[in-house]
């Protein structure tokens, strides 16, 4: 048990009302100093809202927060002074500033007229980075770092602000297994020194690994506080979701893996892009889910984007349905029957100013419009409604603006968008990232159903979540530093074997 039992943070009857929804309802609980406290719940349960109120980004409708007995008021800047530090889901950084600048933003080492001492700053930033145990180029704009590295910079920043309480919203969603281990060690060390951590995560195994106690929210209400050691993943999921729903997932595809025929749909030959991936060759068979596993930086994203035509490559060729592919572009790929689900749904996927329905049909408007481009509104709406129903997308209607949906439902909307293109070959980049337990299961079902229900279908998936890789794929290609390290099939597809090949 970490820390003494002194209560450092108390939430009292916290309520947040939005027009049409209650995000939080009379939530009351307390957190002790030095604890690692998990905040659990489905998407939309209110976890992010609670953290946003704590950090001051959003104001509560009613209720109070006490830190060390004092009532909390004021702006995010005041919160930082009180010792509360937030690390948002990969955001909260000034993208055009360097790592060093971001870590010390607001705490620059400068003289009295404001001239920054670059040398001392870099030194301090480097020291902080080393204490966390990672190695990132702090001199380039954070924009140029990978998502994982950006997350680490954000965390280093929080730690550098001498925070008493650090709140982490999905800190591991872009981290590879190695990084997660490092992060947890740091969290452990810091919590022993008396720093309190609150974190939100969908990765149940991680919550069990790191937290002392946890709170479960469901539909804005507190379901209960438990000691982590008293819970099991199953009992926790039950609390988060309600026991009846769990049964659904002993559904027909859950234990089946996709089997594949001998028909080759795509053959990639000696694909090379200098600096990213080298001499990549593989085949994709009808009916399979082929998964690319690997550490961050192994070249998977650039590879899959090159196959789609969203990125270039230097050498090699791709044969799809027997024909050599020419004129690589996303548009041509879709025309030929290949569709792509981007890794970063917020920045590369959803169209924020458009509705749920429009986000579904946007990739295939040709299907429901005349030659001259006039959209048939009736057909448009039917398709939108059909997908919302078939994929169980939780929304108030086809016209709801997509930002109002939870991450998981946004992801389902994007998957519906792909299926609507009538493409038979899907490229999915981290399809379960930032998505809650239930939706993750649903997406896996949808994926398996997709490849099995019609001929000439296959999915290539990039995933960093080993349980997902193991449960959905029929074959696994492990990439390491830009080359294929191994191809695993059958019983070889299990976490330890995959990890061995990844490093």
């Amino acid at each position: 048990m970490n820390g003494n039992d002194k209560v450092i943070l108390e939430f009292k009857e916290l309520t947040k009302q939005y027009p049409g929804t209650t995000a939080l309802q009379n939530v009351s609980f307390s957190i002790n100093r030095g604890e690692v406290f998990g905040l659990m719940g489905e998407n939309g349960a209110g976890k992010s809202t609670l953290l946003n109120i704590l950090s001051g980004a959003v104001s509560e409708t009613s209720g109070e927060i006490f830190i060390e007995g004092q009532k909390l008021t004021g702006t995010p800047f005041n919160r930082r002074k009180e010792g509360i530090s937030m690390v948002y889901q990969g955001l909260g950084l000034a993208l055009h500033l360097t790592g060093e600048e971001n870590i010390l933003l607001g705490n620059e080492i400068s003289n009295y007229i404001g001239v920054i001492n670059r040398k001392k700053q870099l030194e301090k930033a480097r020291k902080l980075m080393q204490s966390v145990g990672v190695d990132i180029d702090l001199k380039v704009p954070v924009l140029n770092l990978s998502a994982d590295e950006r997350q680490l910079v954000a965390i280093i920043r929080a730690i550098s602000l001498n925070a008493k309480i650090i709140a982490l919203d999905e800190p591991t969603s872009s981290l590879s297994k190695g990084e997660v281990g490092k992060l947890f060690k740091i969290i452990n060390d810091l919590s022993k020194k008396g720093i309190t951590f609150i974190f939100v995560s969908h990765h149940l195994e991680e919550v069990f690994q790191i937290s002392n106690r946890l709170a479960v929210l469901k539909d804005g209400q507190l379901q209960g506080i438990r000691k982590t050691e008293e819970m099991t993943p199953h009992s926790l999921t039950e609390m988060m979701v309600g026991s009846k729903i769990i049964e659904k997932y002993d559904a027909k595809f859950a234990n089946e893996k996709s089997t594949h025929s001998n028909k080759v749909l795509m053959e990639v030959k000696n694909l090379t892009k200098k600096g990213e991936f080298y001499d990549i060759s593989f085949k994709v068979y009808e009916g399979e889910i082929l998964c690319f596993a690997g550490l961050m930086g192994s070249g998977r994203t650039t590879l899959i984007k090159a196959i789609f035509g969203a990125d270039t490559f230097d050498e090699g060729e791709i044969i799809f349905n027997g024909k050599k592919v020419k004129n690589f572009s996303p548009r041509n790929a879709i025309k030929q029957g290949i569709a792509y689900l981007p890794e970063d749904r917020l920045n590369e996927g959803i169209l924020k100013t458009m509705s749920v329905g429009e986000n579904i049909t946007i990739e295939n408007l040709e299907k429901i419009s005349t030659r001259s481009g006039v959209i048939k509104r009736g057909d448009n709406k039917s398709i939108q409604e059909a997908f919302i129903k078939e994929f169980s997308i939780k929304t108030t209607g086809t016209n709801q603006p997509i930002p109002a949906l939870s991450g998981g439902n946004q992801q389902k909307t994007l998957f519906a968008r792909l299926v609507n293109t009538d493409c038979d070959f899907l490229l999915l980049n981290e399809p379960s990232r930032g998505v809650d337990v239930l939706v993750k299961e649903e997406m896996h079902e949808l994926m398996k159903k997709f490849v099995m229900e019609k001929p000439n279908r296959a999915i290539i998936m990039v995933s960093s979540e080993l349980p997902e890789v193991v449960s959905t794929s029929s074959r696994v290609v492990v990439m390491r530093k830009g080359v294929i390290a191994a191809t695993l099939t059958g019983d070889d597809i299990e976490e330890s074997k995959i990890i061995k090949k990844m490093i």
Partner: protein
Amino acid sequence: MTEKIKIQNTKSKKSIGQIIINNAALTALVLLVIMFTFISKRFFTANNVINIFTQVSITAIIAFGMTFVITAAQIDLSVGSVLALAGMIFMALSVAGVPVFLAIIITLAVGGFLGAFSGYLITYFKLPSFIATLALMTIARGIALLMRGGTTICQGIQTSFLWLGQSKVGVIPIPVIILIIIFVIMDFVMTRTTFGTYNRAIGSNPEASRLAGISVNSMLLKIMAISGLCAAVAGIITASRLGVGSPITGMMKELDAITAVILGGTAMTGGVGTIKGTFIGALVVTILTNGLTIMGVSSYWQQILLGFVLIGALALKKFQK
């Protein structure tokens, strides 16, 4: 899918106050009309109403093109200059003896080409639209001035060239008829076609649009060309009304157009656009100036007031739900 699936779009109940705020431009329009009608008996006369609509036609046509541009998260600062250049070319063709229909086609082509030129700078050279259209603005204005050494084209103009700007069908001036036709077409394109949807998509997120298979560059090129085309239409009407080709017309017209678009509800950040809204915005701007002129307010004060109206409209957006 044979069964009809019912998905309810839930609406929250809004108070009258909220409804008024959400439709700020329309409310402003109604209030202005009522206010000016009370202030001066010369306002709501048949003559003045026709006057208002004729004045609004120039601003609105440019603003419609601008709506497409701003919806795509771009800007077109060149429209005023293209208007002037188009007017000069139109009248120069007249003096050269070119028949009016051919002259119209050539002038429109020039307008479209100039817009496409900005589009090319934006898509191929990756210049921000602000810079590209700023450049075109100065270049086009320069060419217009160069054509007659800074003076107007006022002699030797065929009378057929004046028909567009100065004739009527019954009581309705031709410019108003052109306005209505363009309004109907562009509103339809924006709301009912794939072009309109793609316009909003690339303004919302160009990268996501690209990955969804939309030809972002092709769309941008077309949108900028359309803006140039609209400016050319406005230039032809202006020159035809005035009876001369003047290289100094259209100054600041881009600002009027942008004001109309913003007042109408299209956001500078892109992804949202409404032609109907722009029409209302253009009417608000025109009626404001018309009413104030009738009241004898100097045009300098009018300009100041217009600025405040724009600030007010944007401030009000914060309360819209």
